[in-house]
């Protein structure tokens, strides 16, 4: 059932883009109103744009557990998200948390993929299911990060459109918008280097079901050098210096172990 709805939505989106509903550039205030009026006249545009935004965010969150995600694809999706975000900001229709329009189906989709991506530690702590707004609370980040430049909607924030079942807790919309921008950036950082927590997880409990000792040893022999370089590069932020030194000493230990195993 959910799939049918999803397909239907995509077909609608296809039709919409064929009809040539494109964003027009506007220079002045009068154009803004004109464009807004134009958009209101086609009620499905916002809905479909929101759907595209949701789809994009799901794609960014889908973590391929074993293989590194394609950076080009991630960059292109992130740029698409930014485009939509900018347009929605200019429209003044920027609402936090796609509580509007998408309905229950994509909500479930989003939730399930998010659970996939959370580290086992967070799951153990039993964090409640986050939405967009609370997504960034999982990340440790600089709370004071300036996100206002992208979210400057001076016009009053519209009341969220009413939909069946507002699952996510909706806090201060302004703060949530900032969190969204942050979470987008954080998603990007995780593409560059996995969340700092994952490294500790790696060394604390090795999950042997994913790879056997042979693969590990083969990988170790050829990757030790690169591992060092990578480690130094990715741990650039000050919050990670502790794990950096842990990492290096752990690597040396593993090196030592491998040497022994190989010699025998």
């Amino acid at each position: 059932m959910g799939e049918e709805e999803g397909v239907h939505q995509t077909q609608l989106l296809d039709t919409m883009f064929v009809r040539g509903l494109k964003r027009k550039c506007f220079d002045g205030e009068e154009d803004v109103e004109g464009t807004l009026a134009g958009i209101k006249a086609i009620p499905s545009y916002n809905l479909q744009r929101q759907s595209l935004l949701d789809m994009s965010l799901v794609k960014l969150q889908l973590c391929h557990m074993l293989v590194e995600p394609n950076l080009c694809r991630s960059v292109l999706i992130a740029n698409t998200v930014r485009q939509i975000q900018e347009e929605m900001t200019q429209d003044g229709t920027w609402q936090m948390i796609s509580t509007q329009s998408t309905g229950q189906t994509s909500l479930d989709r989003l939730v399930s993929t998010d659970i996939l991506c959370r580290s086992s530690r967070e799951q153990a702590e039993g964090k409640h299911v986050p939405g967009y707004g609370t997504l960034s609370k999982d990340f440790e980040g600089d709370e004071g990060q300036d996100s206002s430049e992208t979210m400057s909607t001076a016009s009053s924030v519209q009341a969220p459109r009413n939909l069946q079942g507002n699952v996510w807790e909706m806090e201060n919309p302004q703060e949530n918008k900032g969190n969204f921008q942050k979470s987008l950036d954080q998603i990007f950082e995780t593409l560059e280097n996995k969340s700092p927590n994952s490294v500790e997880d790696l060394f604390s409990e090795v999950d042997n079901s994913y790879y056997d000792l042979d693969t590990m040893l083969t990988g170790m022999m050829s990757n030790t050098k690169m591992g060092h370089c990578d480690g130094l590069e990715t741990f650039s932020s000050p919050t990670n210096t502790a794990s950096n030194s842990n990492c290096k000493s752990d690597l040396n230990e593993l090196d030592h172990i491998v040497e022994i195993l190989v010699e025998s």
Partner: protein
Amino acid sequence: MSHKQAGGPAGESAADWCLYQLNGAAEFEVSEADIISTVEFNHTGELLATGDKGGRVVIFQREPESKNEPYNQGEYNVYSTFQSHEPEFDYLKSLEIEEKINKIKWLPQQNAAHSLLSTNDKTIKLWKITERDKRPEGYNLKDEEGKLKDLSTVTSLQVPVLKPMDLMVEVTPRRIFANGHTYHVNSISVNSDCETYMSADDLRINLWHLAITDRSFNIVDIKPANMEDLTEVITASEFHPHHCNLFVYSSSKGSLRLCDMRASALCDKHSKLYEEPEDPSNRSFFSEIISSVSDVKFSHSGRYMLTRDYLTVKVWDLNMETKPVETYQVHDYLRSKLCSLYENDCIFDKFECAWNGSDSVIMTGAYNNFFRMFDRNTKRDVTLEASRESSKPRAILKPRRVCVGGKRRKDDISVDSLDFTKKILHTAWHPTENIIAIAATNNLYIFQDKVNSEMH
């Protein structure tokens, strides 16, 4: 090469392509590891190399033409198969490194041996392929089986002689260029100086010397200081075929940058930037994605560049930066389906493109096992299909057509019936003859132009 006038006499077909050979298991036997991920002819066209997802390289060699049957040109038979790359594990990132062969590039042949570079996401390897068809016999100290002889039985000395033996092809890894890339390698290109080559990943391009593995020069670096600011990546790169100081790289935003290594050690500043301004009437949320260049190839002449983005192939003149000189629509009927293609990720498929030997025809793959050819002189184009059903050996391929509503002819396929899982991403054209190699999932098709075996 015989020269044919553009256009030709009325009624004459430009080319008749027919299936020459088909290698690969039937479709229901496909395993993921058998999927071909790259195809490349060597500089003479005598050898054809394919790489697959399982990290293997298969080299085909063309049998010499039989003088008795001049029209039955040499077949490509398997010459050698070897495991080039193995899967690895990156411990720091807790991620697997795929063994899939991303690219193979042949080195120009300098002696009896053949050499090629093969690369996966992280490591480039130089392989040397040699033939052994003679064996020394008549050693003084060893017997036939290699065991040491009892010295008392040796009464005279003999000179070992070389006796013929069954041909043995030996492949050895001569160099391993590791640890040069943090991101995934998407291209390699051998320089015309035959001493250096470059490897490009998403954010950096390195210059290597073929004999030195512990050092490489970084010549392009587009990584921003803050990864959050990343909006553009490198998608492909290639050295100029004649000028060893020039190379081009393409980006995910649809631009090409021509760089001159004489200008500075780090070529972050391009010498020329090739970019076509966006068509405002076609603007959509997918504009940037479909403008991302998936492949760039210099023409054999070195005068032009060929680029492939999601819906078109474009020919650029090196002297003109403002726009391409030619644009060909590969499958414009997909423009109305972009959202569906975004959802199923097909919009991120990276198609390659190829020139023929005389730079008069360009080729690229599409969906439904279709591939397209564009004749630059006659401006005619054709869609052909690489599938078992539609290719009987030696039978001429029938041109295919995709209909978009409106009039529908008998054998047309409608856009909605296209199989998007059957994509032709990798194609190669013989350097001098009208022979093409098409990779369709795990199958390698070799097609030959029956009418015009030589280039014109």
